[in-house]
Structure formats: structure tokens, C-alpha cells
């Protein structure tokens, strides 16, 4: 490898230096806002405003975090998000591939009509369904409950669409061979299809976790009570909450606590992503090569 790589690398040296410089500048621009927020969250609130670009290491403080924990129910926000994440995530990751398997590998009556409807809902703005869904939740008495946060959208159209793509690529011979060995239809899914599509499933898992964790429009509408508020709801109403709790809370305080809360909200997902990034990227690669 090294023996042959040296001359080629020399030949391509200049373009690679150029690519690296270009990519480094661009990635810096991509990372800067997040890095700035993470660092600024530890600066004294007044300093974030008076000197947004400066950094005095001795002046770093946890005051913004203390104030934020005191002013908004961020702990229960995390807890609610965790409950929704685990149950909703499990429903999506089980039901979507199972249904997609039926769409990809079986012929049955109504298949095209159902799949067509799935594609139609892909084009629909999510907010379209919010009013009727909210009315439905009111009728069921589900407003401010976990069911309301979990069930709607738990098997979304995109997951079905994507998993169908992934499962279509599994060779039919593999399924028939399992049938010959006496495997039941569900057994084929569970013991043959699932292991084969694991990279795609891992990608779906990361994307699903991200979507549920980041979702905020539906939770704001259906679970706005402070007891049921998810992390993103807490975050989105933070500014009003702080000014409401503290008479005369100034711009600096609000900004400091906003940045502290934003940092706390983004760190778990960043860690998850950095740990699972290979699966996520390979999963997307597995899903879209055919498309």
C-alpha cells in the first residue's frame, strides 16, 4: 500500500492541500455556532453580551446553569423526553420494518393503494394534521398525556418508505431458502431479514431518536403543561418562563440561561451521534443507494 501510494500522493499533493484548506474553513464555519454556544454558556451572562467574542478563562462560571435549573423544569423535561423516546422509538423500530417487509416482499390486495397513501402523507406538511389530531386527543381525553406524545406519528411514512427500499435489496433466494428450512413467515423477518438489514436499521434508529428528541411542534400543542413538557418544549418557552419567574429579568440573564439550556439539550445528542456516527452514515448509504 505505502510503496504504491507514495508516488500517487505526490502527484495529487497540491489538489489535496487545496481540498483540506477548503474543507477545514468550511467545517470551522459549521462548528463555530455550536462551539460558541457551548463556550459562552460558561461565561458570566453580562460578558456574553458585552464581549461576545472574548474569552476569559478565569471568569468561567456555572451561574447560567444554576439559574436555568432554578427557573425551568429542565429535569422533568429530560425525563418526559426519555419516556417518549424509549416507547415511541421501540414502536417505530419494530412496526416500520415489519410493514415495509410486507410491502417489499409480498403481493397482497390493496398493497399499492396503501403504499400510495403512505407516499401522499410524505408530501403533507406536518402542521396540516395538528388541528384534527388535537381535537381527536381532546375527544379521547389524552391532552397532556404520554399516549398523545407517543402514538401519533409513531410509525411515520418516511420510515416505511426508507425501510422498503432497504428490504427490497435483500435477495429473494435468501427468504426462500429459509422457507425451505421450515421457517415461518414472521421467523423469516425476524431471523433472516432483520440481521441482513442491520446497517439500515441502525441508521433508522439514529434518525428516529433524533426526530423524537428534537420534535417540538406537536409536543408544544398537545403537552404544554409544565408537568408533561418535553425538553424541547421547556427550551422553546424558556425565554417567557425566565422573564415570568424573575421580575425584571434582563436580556443578559435570559441569554445566558438560553445558552446554558441549549447546550444541555444538544450535548446528549452530540455524544450519541459521535458514538454512532458510523452506523448512521452507513445506514443512510444503505438506504439511498437504490434511490
Amino acid at each position, binding site marked *: 500500500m505505502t510503496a504504491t501510494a507514495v508516488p500517487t500522493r505526490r502527484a495529487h499533493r497540491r489538489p489535496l492541500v487545496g481540498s483540506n484548506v477548503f474543507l477545514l474553513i468550511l467545517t470551522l464555519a459549521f462548528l463555530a455556532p455550536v462551539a460558541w454556544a457551548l463556550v459562552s454558556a460558561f461565561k458570566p451572562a453580562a460578558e456574553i453580551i458585552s464581549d461576545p467574542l472574548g474569552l476569559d478563562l478565569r471568569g468561567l462560571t456555572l451561574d447560567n446553569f444554576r439559574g436555568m435549573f432554578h427557573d425551568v423544569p429542565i429535569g422533568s423535561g429530560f425525563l418526559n423526553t426519555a419516556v417518549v423516546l424509549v416507547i415511541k422509538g421501540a414502536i417505530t423500530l419494530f*412496526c416500520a420494518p415489519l410493514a415495509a417487509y410486507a410491502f417489499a416482499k409480498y403481493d397482497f390486495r390493496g398493497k399499492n393503494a396503501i403504499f400510495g397513501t403512505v407516499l401522499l402523507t410524505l408530501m403533507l406538511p406536518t402542521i396540516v394534521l395538528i388541528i384534527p389530531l388535537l381535537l381527536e386527543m381532546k375527544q379521547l381525553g389524552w391532552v397532556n398525556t404520554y399516549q398523545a406524545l407517543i*402514538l401519533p406519528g409513531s410509525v411515520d411514512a418516511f420510515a416505511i418508505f426508507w425501510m422498503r427500499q432497504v428490504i427490497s435489496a435483500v435477495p429473494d433466494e435468501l427468504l426462500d431458502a429459509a422457507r425451505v428450512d421450515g421457517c415461518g413467515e414472521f421467523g423469516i423477518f425476524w431471523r433472516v431479514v432483520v440481521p441482513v438489514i442491520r446497517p439500515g436499521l441502525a441508521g433508522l434508529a439514529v434518525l428516529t431518536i433524533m426526530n423524537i428528541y428534537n420534535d417540538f411542534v406537536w409536543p408544544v400543542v398537545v403537552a404544554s403543561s409544565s408537568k408533561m413538557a418535553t425538553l424541547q418544549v421547556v427550551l422553546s418557552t424558556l425565554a417567557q418562563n425566565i422573564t415570568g419567574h424573575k421580575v425584571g429579568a434582563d436580556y443578559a440573564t435570559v441569554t445566558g440561561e438560553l445558552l446554558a439550556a441549549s447546550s444541555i439539550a444538544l450535548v446528549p445528542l452530540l455524544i450519541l451521534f459521535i458514538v454512532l456516527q458510523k452506523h448512521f452514515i452507513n445506514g443512510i448509504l444503505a438506504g439511498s443507494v437504490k434511490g
Partner: protein
Amino acid sequence: MTTTTAVPLETWKSRRGYSMRRAVAPYLFVLPFIAIFLAFSVYPLLFTLRLSFTNWHGSGAAQWVGLGNYTYLLRSDAFWGSLANSGMLWLLIVPVQIVLSVIVAVLLDNAKLRLRGFYRVAFIVPFVTPLVAVAQIWIVLFDQNYGAVNGLLNLIGLPDVGWLVTSVWAKPTLALLFLWKTSGFIIIILLSGLQAIDSNVYEAASIDGANRPRQVWSITVPLLRRTIMFAVVLQTLAVFQMFAEPFVVTKGGPYNSTTTAGLYLYNHINRADLGTGAANSFLLVIIVMALSLGFVRLLRAKD
């Protein structure tokens, strides 16, 4: 492979119960999905469709108004204004994003690039970051008086810019947020398209003496057309449905300059003007579908 399995499969197929089980299985597999889909997608959708022909305001009896909501919207300047805002944002976002993402994806597709792993993660960090957090960060960064961006401008001797408070700058600032947030995902999608291209194609081209930019333009881009088309359609849907970004960052202002099609739709809902909101939803769906089909046609025609 097929010939070896054909014989035992045929005998196995003749067993009793096989075809029954195989016929019933797919229905059972789609059942959990269908139940959730009917209850929480199809039912609300039909409800919205019926709502779009009434003047219902959330309580009391609904009055049938026929196509009234639709004709009202089609004659309303605010409706067309919101579409124009979204169209403008599309122009500011999609062409830049596609060109930038193709360039980055092509550079990242080089196995000799050492920091590849780092770059891939760095580009996708904004995509992973919660939108609400990003929006709050944007508000603070682009603040006219105290923001870090104006701080940087002052350092090089430029005056403050009212990023989020002037109607000239609010759209580009919002576009930048969207571009920054979603480009990582588009880069990964394009990268997946690139990996499907046979590397022999490039070898043939470099023997013919084509230089790198030329290769990219005349070989990579045409071969990548299907993936690019997918990305354009995906982003067109996303831009025309964009709601949360302007909702958190600008509330549609100043002077409605960032009232996107998605936010305008939400404004009906917020005023409990549910009939108009429902009609607006369906008009938006029709427009977005027409645009997507248009792009598909346009890119297919060149094949």
C-alpha cells in the same frame, strides 16, 4: 442458486397451509402500522379535507361554504405573499446548497483524504443539533446590538447589520440558518450516490487527460443526477413546509418578510380560523407536489 432450491421449494410449496399462511402473513405484518396510520394520519386528514369546505372556528356548528375558503385564499395577497417568501427562500437556499454539497461530497469521496471521518462528523453536527437550540443560538449570534456576528464585522471595520430586524436581511439570515442546519444531511445523501459510481469511469477519463473539475462536471454530475434530483425534491418539500425556523427566530417578521407558506398556514390555525387553515394546507400540498413533479420531469428530460 435458483435451480438448486427450485425442486425442494416446489414440493414444500405443495404442503397444506403454506399458501394460506403466506397469504395472511402480509396483512398481519402491516396491521400495527395500518392501525396507527388510520387513527392518527388518515382520519385527521379526511377531517381536514371536510373542514376545508366549512367556516368552522373550533366551536359551535360548522357552516358549509363550498369552495369559499379556496377562492378566498387564491384572491388573497397574503397567501401569495407567503408563497413568494418561500419561493425566495428556496432560491436563496437550494441552488447554493446543492452546488456546495456536490463539491464537498466529491472532495470527501477521496480515499486519500486523511481527515475524512472528522469532516463527515463536523458537517453533520448542525443537522443533529436540536432546532430549538439552534434557533436560540441564532437569535443571540445575530442580535443587532450584542451579537457575535456584528462583533466580527466591527473587528474588520464594518458597521452593524440588523440581521433579524430588517426585512432586507431577515430572509438571508433565515436561509443561512437552514443551509447550515441541513447541508450535512444532503452531503451524506450525495456521498451515497457517489459511492455507487464505478471508479473505472474516472480512470478512463484521466487517461483521456480530463482534469479534475472537468471530470466532476462532465462525468460525476451526470451520473449523480438521480441522487441530486432526490436531494432537490427533498429540500423543496422542506423549504415550502418550513415552519419551526421562522416561528422561533423571527415570528414571521419584520413586516411579514419571513412569513413562509408553512407559518402563514399556522397563523390561520392560531386564529382558530380552521376552515381557511385546512384549505391552505391542501393548496400547499398541491403546489409542493406540482413543484416536485416539475423537478423530476426537468431532470428526467435530460436523460
